[in-house]
């Protein structure tokens, strides 16, 4: 299997070091630059990249037509389009409480989606 060397920008801290990662498929062979946390980040990015996802869902009966929502933990990056598609079908009804669960164990990931704010019924 041919080895690949690529650059990854670490986002663990604001420094934003550029790590040089040499890998064989998903197995990391070496990482240049970065600290311990950076190496953990690079490993994670390669094998199971995740992102916090924040977006909005429709809500009826509130002061605005949209309710901001966010994932309770970083979400698997490849499945974010699926998540967004699912969230498009959600329609909440005011009143909504802060951190109210909107979806639980989304797509079997064990991660929930919560309401970012309270929205009263008008």
């Amino acid at each position: 299997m041919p080895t690949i060397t690529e650059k990854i920008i670490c986002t663990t801290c604001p420094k934003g070091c550029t790590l040089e990662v040499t890998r064989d498929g998903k197995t990391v062979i070496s990482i240049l630059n970065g600290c311990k946390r950076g190496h953990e980040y690079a490993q994670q990015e390669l094998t199971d990249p995740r992102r916090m996802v924040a977006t909005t869902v429709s809500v009826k009966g509130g002061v605005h037509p949209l309710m901001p929502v966010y994932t309770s933990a970083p979400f698997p990056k490849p499945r974010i389009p699926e998540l967004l598609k699912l969230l498009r079908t959600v329609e909440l009804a005011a009143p909504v409480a802060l951190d109210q669960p909107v979806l639980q164990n989304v797509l079997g990931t064990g991660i929930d989606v919560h309401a970012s704010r309270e929205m009263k019924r008008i």
Partner: protein
Amino acid sequence: MKSYDVIIIGGGVIGCMTARSLSRYDLSVLLIEKEADIGMGASSANSAIVHAGHDPVPGTLKAEMNRLANPMWDQLSAELGIPFKRTGAYIVTIDEPCGCLDALQERARQNGVPAEMISAEEMKKREPRVNPATAGALFTPTAGMVDPFAACLAPLENAVMNGVTVLTETAFVDFIKEGNKILGIKTTRGDFACRWVVNAAGLYSDEVMHKAGVRTEFKINPRKGEYYVLDKSEIQIDNILFPVPTEVSKGILVLGSTHGNVLVGPNSQTTPEKDNRAVTQDGLAEIWAGSQRLVPSITPRSIIAVFAGLRATGNAHAINVDYSHDFVIEIPKEVQGLVNLAGIESPGLTSAPAIAQRVVELLKDAGEKLVEKKNFHPIRPARPRFNHLTHAEQAELVTRDPRYGRMICRCESITEGEIVAEIHAPLPARTYDAIKRRTWLGTGRCLGSFDMPRVVNILSQELGVSPLEITKKGAGSEFLVRLTKDMEA
């Protein structure tokens, strides 16, 4: 087919003033305008000056109309509620050769316009920001600043109050003739019969007259002029400053405005396109250099807006004088039923009330029996402007109508009450830019970034349509494309 006595083509300042003058008489009048709002051409993109009249070549129609019109503005602005300030104007010398103002003063005298020389010291006293290297100036006390858009809106609203019909988004297509007699016009919204057509089509006045076979050699060669608007909280100049003029143009000015902003510009660039009002890097650089010559302390940090206008420069010869860009104000003999107004560039705005008056005189001379209406209302009441009131007056206004309590444009202090009033006015504002022209909303330091979503909502509510249909300046300029949650295929 609907029938009118007079149809005016064009809702710029000339058409609007003419409509108002004609509305005094027992005539049925229609004004058609091709854009979504009136005054969207040169009438709202100019220096906003009522010129003293020293500048036009003596003996031309430009000189005559300017001289006749200038004194009319006091009464007109009072009757119609048009913001107007007779500040006077200065033609400022910096390092031009001595005596360069003499010719101008002589021309002012020939045009019957008061003009006095003032010393460098006096100039600096009157305008402390002027270039300290100034060698003095020529002061023309009868010049003034005017709100150019109000100069269109107010007379036309008064005309509508007095029975004139206005159709926007209606473009002239052709004349309906029988032999050389005009029977009516074809437009993009149908045909209309009439006895007289007034050509006030500005940039397109050549195309209109050619359809009647009039002045085939006449051509409009648009000249673009670009302007900067400066932040009124950074710089205030309550004067009109001209440089010494060149052959081609009055030069790059620095002046205050009825809105309180300083305006700098225009340059002069011939362009073949009648709809190219793009602002250019080179143009802005030129204006910058010119304005700093007059007022060195102007800095780019103060710029809050830029715009360009197109002058309807014609090629008509003056009747008795060697000058080839004069106004056309005539009833041509080639056809029956046309009042032809063309080549109305500067001092067009200034001259508008006199040109409108001349139209009435031309019609009378042509045998029209003009009977004055008994119930003509000359007064068009100005609508309340929150930011012009004292706190006590503001409190009273808000108590009367709470919508005046809701501030929509923070930078210029324009309230919901004012916006709603313009949406339901005799010449209704239906687009964002229409409201902007009428209220000066969205022209302040944040350039609309706060008020835009709110104005879209108010327009949507008051017009009873979805926010998706609200436009900046007519069809094709919608702000929004879809709901966030509507995904397209």
